């Protein structure tokens, strides 16, 4: 692929104006839109979509929070306000299939919108990347940058236990020909990063230790210098954990999409 490739990020409004409809809606999420670190993941995923020729669109400024943090905190009114407005926008565009890089958005859109009238096929980007790899649409150049490197994968609770997605992220990492090493607590036993349930938006309750520090110790114990994540909140918590251990020079945290994009 040429470095000068022109990337396009069409919005649903533009698609509609051109009388076209996309194959998928890429649901960016708040972290993917505003968090400086996760914006890089959004961009990496858009590049993959461009390079693989997937006809996609985003909602742009018409997107808004799914309401997950409000619901987990206990604010059902606010959640349902957000959900109802989002469903109106999504149905207005006739959206059928949604891909998102955020497991919290994924869980809410997939499991909680149907009861409020929003029915879509919702796929997490780890599953979508696996599909693209299986279909031969993603080709690694010379095995890619991470070939043979030791990588450990941190399970997101909202992908794993919440929705039983354990294998897709691992399949993506295996396609990169990495040396995937598991932490002592993984899959169904994976330890939370500490950010779920709206903890991301408050200080932790008092205790002996921060959860992300406990978790980063699992990751560092594997000896891997690359920690793969598939969730914006895990990204923040694991990156902070690396900083807490003063390992930011040697240990890097990447999202699956970044690892794939860097190897294409």
């Amino acid at each position, binding site marked *: 692929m040429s470095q000068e490739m022109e*990337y*396009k*990020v069409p*919005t649903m409004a533009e698609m509609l104006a051109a009388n076209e409809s996309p194959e998928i809606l890429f649901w960016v999420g*708040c972290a*993917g*839109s*505003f968090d400086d670190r996760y914006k890089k993941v*959004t*961009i990496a995923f*858009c*590049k993959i979509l461009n390079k693989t020729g997937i006809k996609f669109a*985003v909602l*742009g*400024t018409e997107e*808004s*929070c799914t309401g997950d*943090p*409000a*619901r*987990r*905190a*206990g*604010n*059902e*009114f*606010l959640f*349902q*306000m*957000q959900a109802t*407005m989002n469903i109106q926008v999504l149905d207005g565009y006739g959206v059928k299939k949604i891909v998102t890089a955020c497991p919290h958005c994924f*869980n809410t859109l*997939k*499991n*909680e919108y149907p*009861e*409020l009238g929003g029915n879509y096929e919702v796929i997490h980007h780890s599953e979508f990347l696996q599909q693209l790899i299986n279909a031969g649409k993603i080709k690694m150049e010379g095995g890619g940058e991470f070939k043979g490197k030791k990588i450990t994968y941190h399970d997101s*609770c909202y992908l794993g*236990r*919440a*929705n039983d997605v354990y294998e897709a992220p691992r399949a993506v990492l295996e396609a990169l020909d990495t040396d995937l090493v598991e932490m002592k607590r993984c899959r*169904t*036993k994976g330890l*939370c990063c*500490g*950010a*779920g*349930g*709206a*903890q*991301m*938006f*408050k*200080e932790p*309750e*008092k*205790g002996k*230790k921060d*959860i992300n520090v*406990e978790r980063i110790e699992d990751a560092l114990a594997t000896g891997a210098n690359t920690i793969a994540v598939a969730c914006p909140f895990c990204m923040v918590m694991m990156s902070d954990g690396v900083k807490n251990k003063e390992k930011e020079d040697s240990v890097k945290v990447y999202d699956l999409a970044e690892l794939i994009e860097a190897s294409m």
Partner: protein
Amino acid sequence: MHILQQILFLVILTAAGYLISRRVRTIKRTIELGRPEDRSDNPSLRMATMLRIAFGQKKMFDRPIIGLMHFIVYAGFLLINIEVLEIVLDGILGTHRLFAPFLGNTYLYLIDFFEFLAVGVLLVCAIFLIRRNITKVERLQPTRHRELNGFPVIDANIILTSEIVLMIALLSMNAVDSILQQRGNEHYHLIGTFAFSGFLKPIFSGWTDSALVIYERIAWWFHIAGILAFAVYVTYSKHLHIFLAFPNTYFSNLNPKGEMSNMPSVTKEVQIMLGLVQPDNEAPAEIARFGAKDVKDLSWKNLMDAYSCTECGRCTSQCPANLTGKQLSPRKIMMDTRDRLEIVGKNMEANGGNFVDDGKSLLGDHISAEELRACTTCNACVQECPINISPLDIILQLRRFQIMEESDAPASWNAMFSNLENNQAPWKFSTNDRFNWADSLKS
């Protein structure tokens, strides 16, 4: 003499039956205090779940050695009950080893098998006592887990000790029985030496016939009366899981664990607010409380969960909040719910079946805001529970009450709420800037 024994037996059996049925009625009534929740869908999947998780103990084998030991006690409990059936019939009919003449040699093998199980149960219960009290397995220590202080620790030791004592009674009874058979005592059918109790025979070999008969009778009475007393005790104990594990797994949540239950009452208000439906002018029916403050606001399934919990602490041992020293313990959530239910149940019994407000509630008097706020909703507790209890479901309903009824939120959550209301994002960024991330790609 025989008829007196039969009458006494019937009296004990009836008393145990009465006490158990009265207690079951109370438990049933308190569970029915909960909100309705439909768990009647998909009966075939529910049956399969129950067979796999409760009958087959699938999740117990996540920790294989403990799983195997637990399985021995469980199989012992299920199968020795066949022998208990014979004992009960003997008690009623005044017979001795009623099944023996019908089964011939098979009877000997059957009793050998029960003895094998009895020895297994005895050994495993001893190991379990050692794990609790000597090697001090972390999740079972009251010094580390405050919810175990007091009755829960005593309860656990009573259960294990009772099972050991009952098994000793059974085995020594068989040993003495076998000696009496071989001495040609006419009351004791000649069956032979049993596989395991045979080793106990030397202890009794010097006893006179009449001493042996007395011992055999005492052991027989102690064993059966002990079982009946234990059955009554179980209904007051964490050990109730031996029965409730079955319905509790049958009524498991079959949805993805990440899905939170919807609140239809809120949906209607939101739709009116957004102008999607017209408000009906009928006076609203009794407005239910938003979220849960007390046990009766929870669903009946949450309450059944509480009675089914055997306080094993697998949930707490995997809880990220508890592991890092926070106040939250999912096991404590379940035990608190049950404690509160017991108080409410007693209150109802004392007031002719109606609950009289005691000014207390689950939230506040048992479970604190700090505990609730430590939860990351990671589902580790739900995943771990060997009988599919969900502490998380209770936590989230209590959170709903805190936020929607009491506006009791940490300041940073209030800030997050107002960001969501004003900017449709949990952070303070303008909606207009939401698509700026794409600028670097499009240039």
